[in-house]
């Protein structure tokens, strides 16, 4: 009997895992189950070029639509997995059918967080995760219309920028003091704030939406502080949570997502997890981390497939992502929660810098504003987990590529 590998979740991680299984010669059955209508695609364009109507959806597809059939990957679209039965080793579908597996990869991703708010079901109130969501928002975009963006994390910030670039009047509301405060901190957040203001985006901080108002369709919002903001449509971007429901009660450990080791293995034999949903042990940081970005979905999906084939290697990719807002390119690499010093190379005022988040003189992460080359050159510093002098990190005449080699010699 050939083995059957079932992948729950046909996003970037699931699609990449299926592809990797075949590329590595797996000749059993590969069943890929996805809730959406489309074959696996990349989501970054949905808040950027695709939202602005500058690129086609085909460009976002992970593989050409015919690829799955040609490679013997059984892709089941618009099918929702509701429960995993670990005793019977089967995935229960919404239809009541069961799909048996020998090994299972859980790559169901994340779902948008919903904060119960009166009027959130009005027409014209959207959130963004899928291409279908994106198309709804696209239909609302035209110059001079008014939008409220709720939440200025990465998705909110990118959507606000894309709407502004498309001529929409944008007001963004966030409960923090600056955009992206949770990830980037206040200092870098101020730079992002300045960029949005310079592009004419109205920003309302330390406030939240109390009610969405309108007769059937959104007409405006009222904030907790009592501000009334009129608008034609709203995009809510309040973050995400891991979509772990099908594993509830199975005994697979869930803690901020599906807990896996550096080989993408859960604590239940034969069940793996990868991508946004997986809280994975990371050898470089010495802890579990969960990463919600493109590069991780891709590389973690590949790593899980190799692990399922018995050819696993510890997954220790340094998390990295970009965020394009207006004409600017932001990038971040590493992982930090708290830090004791932010060391800046370049100029925050001129919006051209790379900033290092340091703790005990070690570089945990770096963020770059229009300095992609410096960001890439910072990744070895993060991997090295060594102490680097702040003055050397700051000095534009010091080639970042030479720093790791210097400490090796010392």
């Amino acid at each position, binding site marked *: 009997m050939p083995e059957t590998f079932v992948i729950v979740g046909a996003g970037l991680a699931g699609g990449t895992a299926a592809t990797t299984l075949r590329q590595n010669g797996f000749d059993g059955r590969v069943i890929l189950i996805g809730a959406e209508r489309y074959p696996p695609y*990349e989501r*970054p364009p949905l808040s950027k*070029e695709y939202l602005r109507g500058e690129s086609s959806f085909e*460009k976002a597809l992970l593989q050409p639509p015919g690829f799955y059939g040609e490679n013997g990957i059984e892709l089941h679209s618009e099918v929702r997995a509701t429960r995993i039965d670990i005793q019977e080793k089967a995935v229960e579908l919404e239809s009541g059918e069961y799909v048996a597996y020998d090994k299972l990869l859980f790559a169901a991703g994340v779902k948008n967080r919903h904060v119960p708010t009166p009027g959130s079901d009005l027409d014209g109130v959207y959130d963004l995760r899928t291409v279908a969501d994106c198309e709804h928002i696209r239909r609302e975009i035209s110059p001079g219309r008014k939008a409220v963006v709720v939440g200025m994390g990465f998705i909110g910030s990118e959507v606000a920028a894309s709407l502004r670039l498309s001529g929409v009047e944008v007001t963004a509301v966030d409960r923090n003091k600056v955009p992206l405060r949770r990830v980037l901190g206040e200092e870098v957040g101020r730079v992002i704030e300045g960029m949005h203001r310079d592009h004419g985006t109205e920003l309302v901080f330390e406030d939240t939406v109390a009610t969405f108002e309108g007769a059937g369709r959104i007409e405006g919002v009222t904030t907790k502080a009592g501000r009334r903001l009129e608008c034609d449509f709203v995009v809510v971007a309040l973050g995400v949570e891991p979509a772990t429901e099908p594993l509830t009660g199975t005994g697979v450990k869930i803690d901020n997502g599906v807990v896996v080791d550096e080989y993408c293995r859960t604590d239940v034999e034969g069940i793996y997890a990868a991508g946004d949903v997986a809280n994975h042990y990371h050898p470089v940081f010495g802890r579990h981390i969960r990463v919600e970005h*493109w*590069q991780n979905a*891709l590389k973690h999906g590949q790593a899980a497939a190799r692990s399922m084939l018995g050819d696993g290697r510890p997954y220790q990719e340094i998390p*990295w992502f*970009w965020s*394009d807002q207006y004409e600017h*390119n932001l*990038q971040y690499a590493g992982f930090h929660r708290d830090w004791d010093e932010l060391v800046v190379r370049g100029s925050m005022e001129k919006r051209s810098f790379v900033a290092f988040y340091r703790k005990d003189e070690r570089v945990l992460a770096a963020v770059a504003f229009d300095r*992609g*080359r410096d960001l*890439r*050159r910072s990744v070895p510093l993060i991997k090295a987990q060594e102490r680097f002098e702040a003055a050397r990190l700051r000095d534009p005449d010091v080639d970042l590529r030479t720093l790791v080699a210097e400490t090796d010699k010392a």
Partner: protein
Amino acid sequence: MGEFVTVAGMDEIEAGEMRAFDVRGIEVAVANVDGAFHAFDDTCTHAGCSLAGGDLEESTVICPCHGSEFDVRSGEVLQGPAREDLATYETRVEGGSLKVEG
């Protein structure tokens, strides 16, 4: 095959370095890989960033914006998010000048 256009002196791009030039209205990057010059579209096929602003590691150019990687010799995509290969151009060194097919 187009004519060759002089873009720089042959000593102006050191080994391991890249520079971009306007060659008859097209931004063309030239990389020096161990003394051999390779010319390719400077504009990344993914989102249009200038590749000469990225890093050159041996014969691989890495886009500074989104990390796509291309082989400068063939223009082939080695790593996404880009999907389309880069156009490449012939180069020639004549009388101390570096020329690119235009």
